[in-house]
């Protein structure tokens, strides 16, 4: 643990940027076709529930991170094993996100550059930031949040003036069966909303712990709305068929802007937005993974771990998949079911049950002693 404090505002900004990070480039909820934006709203509701679950578990052990309270709930051996798995899960996710963004850059702008080199530059930035600590990251978040907001609003205005937005593409609403829509909602619960799990590692830094709940709920709500609006814009500009064929729909959307013979080819907007989003996503994952490892192995100076673990993440990101489609398939089929579901839903539920039982015992003991 560092000696650092972040304000509720900073936590909010970090959460929103984190959620937007990769979900802006990787479309979610596409099973629902042109209702994907509705599916995201539904997923957001699930995300709110998940957040409340994490918050409830954490509220039994204020000031502690999951890797610390897991042994307290499940006993030292079992708890430590699960804490270790949890840290591995975080590292895997960090590597996955790194891979996402590396691949995005290779496909979009640097086809001849090896993925490793692209990811290396990412990791240089991430390692530097993690070493500077959560305070610097949170402040950077506040500044870059403004930048992203300006970019988003500008792009939106340009899209409107360009006449690219055709809301007819959003019709017909509710075409697919309700089951399909529900399925799409379920998909978007774990990714991206379930990933706020990582912030359980960051709450102890908050200056006003009481505000954690409100901040978290607002952050999930706002990021859900932004994601939904983005998806709706993408759909209405591109139409579902083109969107579903695009690796990066947002890029295609922005490329349609051609205004006044001058405001065109605004790919750099996309690039800035996505690199900022990716930066926060990767950095927060790596940060919490390293903090988790440090608390698990009782390393006092967590900055000693940054360098070696950063390198491991880098190599992991190259090794987890042979090619991009495989990587995406894993991300859509394997990871949600076999990793997200247990780690984001089942374990926290078990933790909650354990925590409630332990607390009851404690209360009984206290009563008995009285």
């Amino acid at each position, binding site marked *: 643990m560092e000696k650092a404090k972040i*304000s509720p*505002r*900073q936590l909010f900004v970090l959460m929103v940027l984190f959620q937007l990070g990769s979900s802006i480039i990787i479309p979610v909820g596409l099973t629902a076709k042109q209702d994907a934006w509705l599916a995201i709203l539904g997923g957001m509701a699930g995300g709110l529930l998940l957040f409340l679950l994490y918050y409830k578990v954490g509220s039994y052990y204020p000031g502690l991170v999951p890797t610390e309270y897991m042994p307290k709930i499940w006993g030292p051996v079992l708890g430590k094993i699960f804490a270790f798995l949890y840290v591995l899960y975080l590292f895997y996710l960090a590597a996955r996100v790194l891979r996402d963004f590396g691949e995005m*850059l290779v496909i979009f*702008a*640097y086809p001849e*550059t090896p993925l490793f080199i*692209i990811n290396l*530059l*990412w990791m*240089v*930035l991430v390692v*530097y*930031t993690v070493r*500077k*600590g959560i*305070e*610097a*990251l*949170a*402040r*950077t*978040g*506040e*500044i*870059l949040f*403004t930048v992203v907001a300006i970019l988003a609003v500008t792009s939106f205005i340009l899209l409107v003036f360009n006449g690219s937005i055709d809301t007819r593409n959003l019709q017909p609403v509710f075409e697919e069966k309700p089951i399909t829509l529900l399925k799409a909602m379920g998909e978007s619960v774990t990714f991206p909303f379930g990933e706020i799990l990582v912030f359980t590692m960051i709450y102890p830094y908050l200056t006003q712990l009481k505000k954690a709940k409100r901040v978290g709920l607002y952050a999930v709500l706002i990021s859900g709305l932004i994601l939904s609006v983005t998806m709706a814009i993408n759909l209405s500009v591109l139409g579902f068929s083109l969107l579903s064929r695009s690796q990066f729909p947002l890029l295609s959307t922005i490329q349609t802007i051609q205004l006044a*013979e*001058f405001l*065109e*080819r*605004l*790919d*750099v907007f996309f*690039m*800035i937005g996505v*690199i*900022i989003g990716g*930066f926060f996503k990767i950095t927060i994952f790596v940060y919490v993974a390293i903090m988790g490892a440090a608390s698990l192995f009782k390393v006092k100076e967590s900055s000693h771990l940054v360098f070696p673990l950063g390198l491991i993440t880098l190599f992991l990101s190259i090794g987890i998949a042979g090619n991009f489609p495989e990587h995406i398939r894993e991300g859509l089929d394997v990871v949600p079911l076999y990793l997200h579901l247990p780690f984001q839903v089942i374990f926290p539920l078990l933790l909650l049950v354990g925590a409630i039982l332990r607390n009851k015992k404690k209360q009984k003991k206290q009563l008995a002693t009285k």
Partner: protein
Amino acid sequence: MSPFFKGKKQAAPNQSQPVDPMPGSITSNLQDNLSLVKQKFGNSPDIIIRELKIGSSKAKAAVIYVQGLVDNQLLNDFLIESLMQYQSSSQNETKPEMLDNIYDLVIPMGGVKKQTEWSKLLESLLVGATLIFIDGTDKAFTVASTQGGEGRSISEPTTQNVIRGSKEAFTENISTNISMVRRIIRTPDLWVESMKIGTQTNTNVSIMYLNNIVDHDVVQEVKKRLKKIKIDSILESGYIEQLIEDQPASPFPQIYHTEKPDVIAGNLLEGRVAIFVNGTPFVLLVPVVFIQFFQTPDDYYFRFDIATFTRFLRIFIFFISLIGPAVYIAATTFHQEMIPTQLVLIIAAQRETVPFPAVIEALIMELAFEVLREAGLRLPKAIGSTVSIVGGLVIGQAAVQAGIVSPPMVIVVAITAIASFATPSFAVAISVRLLRFIFMGLAAAFGFYGIIIGLIMMTVHLCSLRSFGVPYMAPLGPFRPVENGDTLIRAPWWATKKRPSLFSSNNVKREAENQMPAPPQPRTIKSESTEKGNQNES
């Protein structure tokens, strides 16, 4: 600079020579005292010892001063003359009585002290005080008011020109400088503390703050850091700056320096601490935030709308001078798709004959420009224009015509250069100069990806900095909405109700409520009278 270095080199061997240990206090024997002074200064001819006899008892006395450090007229007319004309009140006054009488009746000056310790005496002698020894007493006078000698008079600032506002700038003399601020802020709450730093130079260093506004933790921290300095010399405030900043490995300045008293006054009123160093017109200010380097004194004197506009302009300028050439390199070697077709065709046409890749071309031009700038800086003003003609016109034009560099590149480098001159703070402008080359490297290797990663890294770095406990990027990160009235935007004075709480923790109220001006009520009468007035004039 060369005399300084020479001085240092000569000083070094002297140190190794055995010097008699300094006795603690003076003796009552005048001759002993005088010979000690002579020996101490190695019979330097600029140490003037004027021996005289005073009073009816014709007591032996001596006046010691350093030539050039004292105001000769003052010394002769008031001090020596009145000493010589001293008549004892009684024939048999004792030496100590005489000493008191001289102190009470003779010396028509302020700043007189009785001293016994050699160290204090020599110290004040070296800052321009005059020493008076009287035989048979074990006390001596130091007359500080004789300080004077040649110094530069107050003139206009050379590095911070303003269009509106005070035109005076600090001088090399610390007491003049302090007085210039005192003349602006007339309150007893303006406190000054001084100390001497530098084992050889014994430079006067003073800190100044407004006692009722300043955050006292910062004052303590400043004093702590200043006291920690153990160095032989302080020749300029830059020494201090480099010895007390928070993060020495950062390319960004973490201490503000200025030569304008009104800037110091304005910042003291926001709760900052000023550090004056004798011998330089540049006064330091701590703690600072990054955005402060983009503000100029005129901002506060002009109307807020234009001031806000120029602040945005300066941020824009900062980015141009930081990544101008880098963006050109990235766009022409990686992202040709992002340039409009007509423009890319023009650039491509111009680049056909250029034998270098864009990054080499940019490096050549940037280096050439740096050389020109350096040459222009050191040359006498008369030749300076020749350099710009030869450099800018002759070399630039010839290089383009020969096809060694392309005209768009020249345009980019020129815009970058002008942008870096337009940055209000020289300290930031020079750190940007260095970073620009790093960004060019990143652009050449990774295009926009490299530039954006570099910019984020720079932001992280800036956000991790602190200046005397204050986050460097405040109030942008950590974001404090209330305090953004004086950052990128400059809110009108009637809306700036509070001081930034970053620096002044306890006293933030700046002005009364309802300061927004409005036309008088009722308006009709007034307007009639002005109309009449106009008619009369016409």
